[in-house]
């Protein structure tokens, strides 16, 4: 019998997208558990068993201080070595929305030149407020194992107040592109990079998601786990929803990678 990919959806106080993330990975054929860092990284759960860790969306610690900051600090102080070791074993990490903010603040993304310190940030949207809207994403790099070129735009929602992607400096920004670490950009329905609302938060160069140098860690502001069923789409009554442009493809790619390479 083929073993099922094992996914751990991490949770903190204020995480609130854990259950739909679990459901999405289950739909993609994985076996999923939800729990706190203390459970995963200490003896209670066997970290070795898992192939993928997901940092899901939500408001970890209420976004107090800054989005993702408290959770990232907590991981840094107590579980960083274990997490780095997990990465070294060739396994996968996905950060969605608040999870992306955590990965960025931990320095796991983009980790240019393998330096695990924060070099980019996700700050307040230009609109200064939380917004929930559906966006088109264009995949511009095949570096991430989570993305395979579809030649079509992906469509899924963003829902955040702090999602404007910025970099420390221009050099960092250029390197991200040169290294093909920018995976998704916000575009309009015609695939063009335009301003608000297509770029919902004012991210530099419309960056919506990036990966690390290995392609095995992905962080993105949009929510693929909210776009896995036809009826979750806002426009399913008007047109056919092709499965290969849903958020489920991103999750499926990850699950398939694990099946292909890790088990």
């Amino acid at each position: 019998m083929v073993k099922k990919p094992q996914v751990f959806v991490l949770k903190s106080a204020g995480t609130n997208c854990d259950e739909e993330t679990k459901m999405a990975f289950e739909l993609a054929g994985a076996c999923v558990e939800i729990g706190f860092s203390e459970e995963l990284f200490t003896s209670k759960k066997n970290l070795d068993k898992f192939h993928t860790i997901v940092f899901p969306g939500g408001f970890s610690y209420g976004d107090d201080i800054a989005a993702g900051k408290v959770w990232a600090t907590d991981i840094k102080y107590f579980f960083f070595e274990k997490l780095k070791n997990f990465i070294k074993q060739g396994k996968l990490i996905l950060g969605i929305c608040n999870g992306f903010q955590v990965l960025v603040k931990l320095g796991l993304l983009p980790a240019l030149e393998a330096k695990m310190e924060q070099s980019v940030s996700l700050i307040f949207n230009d609109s200064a407020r939380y917004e929930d809207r559906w966006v088109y994403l264009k995949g511009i790099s095949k570096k991430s194992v989570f993305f395979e070129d579809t030649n079509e735009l992906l469509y899924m929602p963003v829902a955040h107040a702090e999602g404007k992607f910025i970099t420390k400096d221009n050099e960092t920004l250029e390197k991200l592109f040169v290294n093909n670490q920018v995976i998704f950009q916000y575009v309009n329905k015609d695939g063009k990079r335009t301003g608000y609302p297509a770029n919902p938060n004012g991210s530099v160069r419309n960056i919506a998601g990036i990966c690390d140098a290995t392609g095995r860690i992905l962080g993105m502001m949009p929510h693929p786990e909210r776009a896995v069923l036809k009826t979750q789409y806002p426009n399913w009554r008007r047109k056919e929803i092709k499965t290969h442009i849903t958020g489920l493809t991103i999750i499926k790619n990850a699950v398939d990678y694990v099946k292909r390479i890790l088990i």
Partner: protein
Amino acid sequence: MYYRIEVSTKPELPDPIGEDIKKDIYHLGLENIKNIRFIRIFILKTKKIKKTALLKISKDILADPISDIYNLDNHITHTKKKSTAFVEIAYLPGVMDPVALTTQRLLKKIGINFIEDVQTRNRYEISGLLNKRDIQFIVKKLLMNSQIQIWVKDEKKIFTHRKPAKTKIRKVNILEKSDKELLNISSVGLLSLNLEEMKKIQHYFALKRRDPVDIELETIAQTWSEHCVHKTFNGIINYNGNRINNLLRTTIMKATEELNSDFCISVFKDNAGIIKFTNDLSITFKVETHNHPSALEPYGGAGTGIGGVIRDTLGTGLGAKPIANTDIFCFGPMDFPMNKLPSGVLHPKRIFKGVIAGVRDYGNRMGIPTVNGAIIFDKAYLYNPVVYCGSIGIIPTRLSFKAPQAGDIIVVFGGKTGKDGIHGVTFASLELDEKSEISSSGAVQIGNPITEKKLTDALLEARNENLYNAITDCGGGGLSSAVGEMGKDLGVSVHLEKVPLKYEGLRYDEIWISESQERMVIAVPKKNMKRVKDIFNKHSVDFAPIGHFENTGKLKLFYNKHKVGEIEMNFLHKGYPQSRKNAYWKKKRFAEPSLRKKVNYENILLKLLHQPNIASKEVVIRQYDHEVQGLSALKPLTGKMNDGPSDGAILRPSPDSKKGIVISCGINPYYGKIDPYWMAVSSIEEAMRNAVSCGGNPNKSAILDNFSWGDVNNPKILGELVRASFGCYDTSTALKVPFISGKDSLNNVFSLNGKKKSILSTLLISCISICDDVTRSPSSDFKKEGSLIYIIGKTKKEMGGSHYYRLFNKTGNSVPKLNFKLSYKILNKIYNVIKKGYVNSIHDCSEGGIGVALAEMSIGGRLGATLNIENINKEGNLRIDELLFSESNSRFIVEIPERKKKMFEKVIQGIPFAQIGNVENSGKLMIFKKKRGIAELKINKMVSNWKQRITW
């Protein structure tokens, strides 16, 4: 020692928060404002000076290395200009400051032990040609709320708690007091008890031959408050000479009893009503009002409103899982002149922004989607806004009931107890006046949604393991109401010193009646305590056993081993004197206006689309996470560009089933101005029309009532309540849709120069309905060129209270009525055609009539249409404006594919219908009467009028 660390966005980066405030200042009329930069302040208390450590904290934790600058012990300044002013705002001691709390916990957790206390402040660097008075104006109107904050002029000054006072047991001498003195005791103690009630209490304690302890008096006042026992609804009303004993029981609850619907699991007895969804799962629904707190502190008031109703869901049965929120607001006009605003009243725009931000931050942080709502703007709500918050939950049916057992331990968990919201309940039953800003400051609470999220996660885990016998939430009246209510059939002993406190200095009676947020109570059998502790610890949830249930029939209160109170449960819960009130109602006569026969219909329709009550609420809806949890199958915004208005929302709880939950509402206070009876009737039918449009089954629908009324001691206004309740009964029974829960908020009155200003009598009807197949549910946007457009239902000359009349500042008399039998038939037939899959799109006709409904469908689909209004099924001879803008009930506009015409018309035989046109890809809505062109509207123009009204 106190150290301050300032953090701000780098000067070269834009500061969106500052920009947003700048916009608001500009809107205040201060156009000289140049720039605002926002600076976050952390004040850390340490015993020793450890500058390097503090610098490290600033760099690693408090500031973002990419986007922020920070400064230890020096001010950050972005400009060097002289005309720059700095304003620093601090929280008052004891007010919830989540950021400070999180920071303190984090520092402790990572081993930084020398920080003893953290406080945060907001600092604003304001530049522009502004004088002192301008700055004061900005602070007062925008930057600070004196309920919870203080403008710090001397930045070195630190605010801390007063030292705890020694607790002495205080008796209140009432036995020998005169009537006048009794009333004085009630008013000084903010008890809101009337003379008859005070005398009843006096009599009770006279039999006991002792004076009450203050805590006993407080407990009785809380339990007997309008908020808790609904004295008016349950009392005796002399209505136009007829005696009504218990209005609620003889109208709304009676309808439910008579209908005896098999899908109702629990009605009117729990924190929410429960209806059956599948064999194993049920749905809970509760809607609350939070008007008074939102008037004083909109952000905190609305946030704790939503937080409270979510706890109602958690406290229903043995605990339901919250899956959606609703919000319905009534505000004063957004463009009300600032200089005409009475003192003590916040500007509607501030209330609007604060309330929405409060609901947004609480719901979003909890991870509960806000899926349905409405906003009404009217002068009647200038002094008292109306804020309704609803919560929908899902629960295994077998867990729908609860009962504490003697011996069970009372465990309080979630937030800690502070002085927040003391006297909130009795305050809610009082009227506001110009001094309210000061005298009621204790009544304002600020919530912390993350505390409630942790509580939710821990609670559902404990529920799934069957670890407790009963649960309820601490809402109005705090522990006093929660524990008192839970133990009313048994008896309880409570040890108040065991309640976890936020800070020292609370008296025993304050602990008992505090309305601190995010607290709940469960009844845990002794053997389960260990497991309960483990679960709460795992989720970092504070908790404490504070007493136990016992078979004594008494409420016994202890503080540090002294008994501080003992009251019979029977007296507490049944001893209050039934209220007696007079009410009368006489039909008001508003002149039926004679408007010009010929008007420019294009202009009228564009104006209607631009009316705040009709215009797009997108700017609000997008701020709510309306799809977290991933259950959404119909979003509040729909159509080609995701901006058309939906009639309701659909949730699909399981991907394995096509079954869905429909949520909708109906509200129209303008009809109530003319006749509250027909307001109730129309609101119920509107809620039902909206639900059925979304594919809801009218025979598996239930409704909730929420009355927000004015001064019910005024017989006229109470008469309106009676009249509305009669409407509720008649419609509920005729449409066979039971009420399952409700809530009233009475006395929404503001005293201005001795004159009482009541709100419009406002009834909200919320509806929950089952949709058997969400994949068949249509939405309101036109779908396809060439398809046929029908109007179902009869259009009558019913313009009274219409938005069309309101354009001319008229009310009129001809309020929409209802043919009850026909309505039932229409709702069922519409359900059938949707279920059979005949319908492309459908929209309820309500505010603005056929004209607005068609325009909205056209906007949603970005598709035009050609229509002949001559065909409309009508009663008598109607003018064009009447045809287009009458708000008659029981009408829908339906779009069907041409090939389904025959089948469709076969099903709808027996109800009035008419085919009136076609959907076209013309970019225009073209309305004809026979061959004569009446109006030709470009979709783009309609879109801009509709969307560019309510902006943030």
